C-alpha cells in the first residue's frame, strides 16, 4: 500500500483542522462599541486620552491601573488593567488593549504600547542641554 498519499492526506487534514481551530484564537481589531455588544475578548487599538485621569496608586493597590482610551471611532472608555503601570506610559502614542467590556469599563488583561522614537529632537544631542 502506498503510504505517501496517506501521509499527504493526513497532513492536509491536520492543516485544515489547525487552520479552523486557530481562527478561534484570532479576532479583528474592535471598537469599544463592538466590544460592548459582543461581550467577548477583543483587541481595541486607540490612543491614550491625555485629558482624562490616569490612576495608579500602588499604596492602595499595586495591581490596579486605570486610564481612558479613545478608539478609532472617537469613543472614550475607561480601561482597567490589573497590573503595575508600565514605564513611560504617558508618552505612548498608540495603545492596543486586549480584554472585554464589563460593567461599563474595559477590563484588559494585556496591553501593548507604541512609544515615539526617542531621539528625534535636536535639543537632545546638543552638549550641555541634557
Amino acid at each position, binding site marked *: 500500500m*502506498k*503510504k*505517501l498519499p496517506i*501521509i499527504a492526506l493526513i*497532513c492536509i487534514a*491536520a*492543516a485544515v483542522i*489547525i487552520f479552523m481551530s*486557530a481562527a478561534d*484564537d*484570532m*479576532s*479583528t*481589531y474592535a471598537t469599544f462599541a463592538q466590544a460592548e455588544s459582543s461581550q467577548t*475578548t*477583543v*483587541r481595541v*487599538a486607540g490612543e491614550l486620552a491625555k485629558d482624562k485621569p490616569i490612576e*495608579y496608586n*500602588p*499604596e492602595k*493597590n*499595586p*495591581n*490596579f491601573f486605570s486610564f481612558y482610551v479613545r478608539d478609532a471611532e472617537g469613543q472614550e472608555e475607561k480601561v482597567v488593567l*490589573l*497590573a*503595575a*503601570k508600565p*514605564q*513611560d506610559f504617558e508618552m505612548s502614542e*498608540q495603545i*492596543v488593549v*486586549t480584554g472585554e467590556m464589563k460593567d461599563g469599563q474595559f*477590563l484588559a*488583561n*494585556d496591553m*501593548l504600547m*507604541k512609544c515615539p*522614537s*526617542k*531621539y528625534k529632537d*535636536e535639543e*537632545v*544631542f*546638543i*552638549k550641555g542641554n*541634557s
Partner: protein
Amino acid sequence: MDEIQYVNEHLTAGAIGRAAVVLAFVCAILSLVSGIFATQAQRKGEANQGWQRMLGTSYGIMGLSIVGIIVLLLTMMTNHWYEFQYVQQHVNDELPFRYVFTAFWEGQEGSFLLWLFWNSVLGGVIWFTAGRWRAPVLTIIASVQVVLLSMLLGVYLPFGENFRLGSSPFLLLREVMDIPIFNQADYVDLIEGTGLNPLLQNYWMIIHPPTLFLGFASTVVPFAYAVAALWIKDHKGWLTPVLRWSLFSGGILGIGILMGGAWAYEALNFGGYWAWDPVENTSLVPWLLIVAGIHTNLVAKSTGYSIKATYIFYLLGFVAVLYSSFLTRSGVLGETSVHAFTEMGLENQLLFLVVSFFLMGLVFLALRWTQIPKKEKEEAASSREFWMFLGSLVLLFSGGMILASTSLPVINKVSDFFELGMDHLTINEPVAHYNKYQLWVGVFMGMFTATAQYFRWKGRSVAAGSSQKLLIRMGVSILVSFLLTVVTFNALATAGWQFAVLAFAAYFAVFSNIDYLFTSKLALWQRIGSVAAHVGFGTMLIGILFSGLNQHQISKNTFAMDGLLGEEQIGKNVLIVKGLPMVINGYEVTYLSDSLDGNRRDYHIQYRELSKDGVIGNEFVLSPYALYTNDFAKVASMNPDTKHYWDHDVFTHITGLPPGAQSADLAKAFEDSLDYKRFPLAIGASTETEKHRLTLLEVNEQPTHPDYEPEPGDLALGLKVKLERLDFDTVQYAEPVVVLRENLVYSFPTQINPFSARIQVPEDAFSARFGAENKLDYRDATLKPGETVTVDDYTFRFDKFDGEAQHTNYKREEGDVAVNAKLSVLKDGAVVADMNPLFYIRNNEPGQVKDFDVKHGLHARLAKIDPATGSALVAVAVSDPAENVLLPIELAENASRSDWVVLEATVFPGINLFWIGTIMMLAGLLIAMGFRIAEKRKLIPAYELKVDTSNQVASPNLTSRPEPVG
C-alpha cells in the same frame, strides 16, 4: 548664499568608507559573474582556472573591503565622530568601550555589515575546503553579497521618485537632518551622541548578535549547495558536504537564539526566556527548517530517499532567514513586536531580497524536478528513515504554523494593498496560542525521536539482539517514562492531560536515547551527537514543562482583591515598605535599602524562605535595579535580578517606584501637589493640626541633612522639630534645613514616611531669626574709643579698631583695606556681648559687614571711620531676643510615603533543565559536525553501511580506530 565651511569634520574618512562600499559591491558583482562562467565551464568539462582565479581574487577583495568598512566604522565610533549620523545615533561619551561593539550592531547598517562579514568568512572557508563545489557554491553566496551590499550603497537612482538604493552608514548628520545648528561652522564641537539603549547594555548583547548573525548567515551555505547541486545536476554528491554545514548552522543558530533567551531572562522584565515575540519566532523558524533538513539529509545520504525533501528544507531555511530579516527590519510588524527595527525606507529592497532568492530556489527546483532521483519502492513503515521523514514533516508543520501566525500583520498589509477589504486579524493571546499548538509538535517529536531509535536503520536493526530483546528494552523504557510521567504530573500545578502526554513523550525520548547510547553497535562517535541532541531535546521539554507550568509568583498578594475580580486576575505585584518585612507565599520579603551607583539605583531586597512552621530556610538578597537615562531625568529601564538554585530560580524585578525616584517631572509634580501649611513657632512652642502636634525643639546653625553638603560662606538654618500623632502615641523627629548660598535659597525638606508628612523651612525664617533689616530702628553715633551709645537696655561701648579685620561673613580679597570696630555691649553694668562690625574699601568702593547677636537681638554696623580723630561712625539697633522670635515652619500632611517599591517576584522551578537540555541539544549538533569533519579529513574511518540483506548485524570495528594523524 555662501556655502558654510565646516570645521573639524572627518570628511576623508567618510569618503573612504563610501568608496569601500562601492568597491565591495563591484567586487561582489565581479565574483558573481566570474563564478557563473567558472561553473558553466566546469559543467562542460572545460578548463576554468582563469575564471576561478578571478572569482577568488574578487571575492577576497570584497571580503577585505567589508572588514575595512567595519574597522573604519568602529574607529569612528570609538573616537566619537558625531558628525556621522550612525555614530551620533549609537554611541555617546559615557558608553564603556566594551559596548561599542553592541552599539555597532544595534543599527540596521551595522547588522548588515555583520551579516556581510560572516558571509565573507563562510565564503573563504568554502574557497579553501569545498573542492569541486567551490565555484558554484561561492557564486550563490556572491549573489547574496551583491544584494546585501546594495543595502549599504545609499545612492539615488534616477527612476521613480528619487528611488534610493540602500542606506549608507557614512552619512553625515547634516545630510540627514535640517536643523539650525548646522548654520554654525563649528557644530561638530557642539553636538554629542545619543548613546546606546540602556536595555542593550548587557554583556549578552556583546556576544548574542554576532552568534545569531553567524547562524543566520550560515544558512546560506546549505541553500547555496542545494542550488549548486540543482545547477550542476549532481543530486547525490552534495549530500555529504552539505551535512557538515547544516549541522554547523543548526548548532550556531540555535546557540544564537538561546543567548537571546538568556539575555531576555536576565535583562528584560517580562520574566522568562521565550515570549513568542515575532522577532523570536522568525529566528526559530529557519532553525526548525534546517533541523528538518538535517534529518532528511541523513535519510537521503544513506538510502537515496527524501532528496527532494532535503532540497526543499534547505532552500526554505535560507528564504525563512531572509523573510525574518524582512519582517524585523521593514517596520511591518509595527505594533506587534517590541524589538523591531525602525523603518529605514528599505522595505522594497528587503522584499526584493526575499522574493528573488525564493524564486531562485523555486526555478532551479522546478527545472530539475523530474531529474531528481527517487526510489520507486517506498520506505517501509518499520524503518527508522520513515519516521525521521515524518519527524521532519512535523517540524515543517511547526515552522509553518509559527510563520503563519507571525505573518498576520503582513497579511493585513497585503490585504490593504490589494484593497481586498479584509478585516485586520490579530491573535488575542499570542503566548497561549503558540503554546497550544507547539505542545503537540513537542509530543510528536518526542515520540518519533524515541521510537525511531528502536527501528531498523537502513533495512536492518543496528540495535543489537533479537527483536524480542528489543521489545523488552522498549517496554522498560516506556515503563520508566510512564512512572516518571505520573510523578511529574502530580507535581505540576496545572493539570491538563495534554501536559502528561508531553511529559511522557519527553521522558520516552530521553530514556530510549540513553538506551540507544549503550546498546547501539555503531561507533561511539556516530551516535554521541545524535544521542546528546535527542536526550537534550527531551530534557528541554521537561524543563519547559516545569518552569512554564509551575512558575509561581511569590509576590501574588491574595488579600489585595476584594471579591471584585476573578481568581486569575489577582495581580502579580506587591508593594513593600522599606524595613517592614512582609510575609507572602512562603517567603519573608524585606526591602532593606537602596544604593546609587552611577546612573543605576539598586534596591536590595531580602528573601527568607519560611516553612509552614515558620522555620527560616534559604536566605538571600536580590538587587534588581532601576537604570536612569544619562541625564538622570527619568528611569530608562528596570532590570531584574535572579537567585539561582540547582532546582529553581527566584526572579525579581521592580514594577513601580515612588514618583520622586521615577523621573524629574514626576518628582516636581509631586512637590507641587503638596499642601503645605505654615506655622510660626517660638522655640519650645507647639501647635496642633487635626492629626498631629508639631513642636519646635531648637535651632541649629550648623545643621546636617542627607542631601546637604555644607560649603564655606553658607548661611544655614536647621529647625529641630518633633511631630506627634494625635490618634496614636507615636513620635517622630525631623530637622528640615534651609540654606542661603550666594544670594540663592536652597530648601532641604524632611519626609516623615510613617506619617505621610513632609516638613520644610521657608525662606523668611532667615529674617525672622536674624531680624528683618528694614524693620530695625538704627541709631547712629560717632564714638571715640571708650565712648558709648545706649539703645533701650543696652549700652554699646566702642573699645578700639582692629586691623585683623575678621568676620565669618567676610571674605578678604586682594587689595582690600578693612578694619573691625570692637564693641562691648553692657546691660546693667555687665558685659553681655562682644561685637565686631567691619568696614572695608574694595576698588575704591566702601562696604560694610554687620554683626549681630541673635541671643539678645543686637545689631551693629560700622558705617565710616575717621582716621584724623580716631573715631568711628557706628549704627546700632536692638530687636527681640531669640526666645521671643516666631520661626515659620511649613508642614504638609498629604505627602505620600516615598520609601517603598512595587515588585514582582517569580519562582521558576526546573529552569536549569531547560538550559541544560537546550545546550545539550545544540552541542549534539556541533559534536556531530565535528565528527563529520574528522571523517572527511580521514581522522576517523568513513562509515558507510552496506545495504544489508542477510539480516546480519554489521559490526564495524570499534576497537581499531586509527590514531589521528598530525
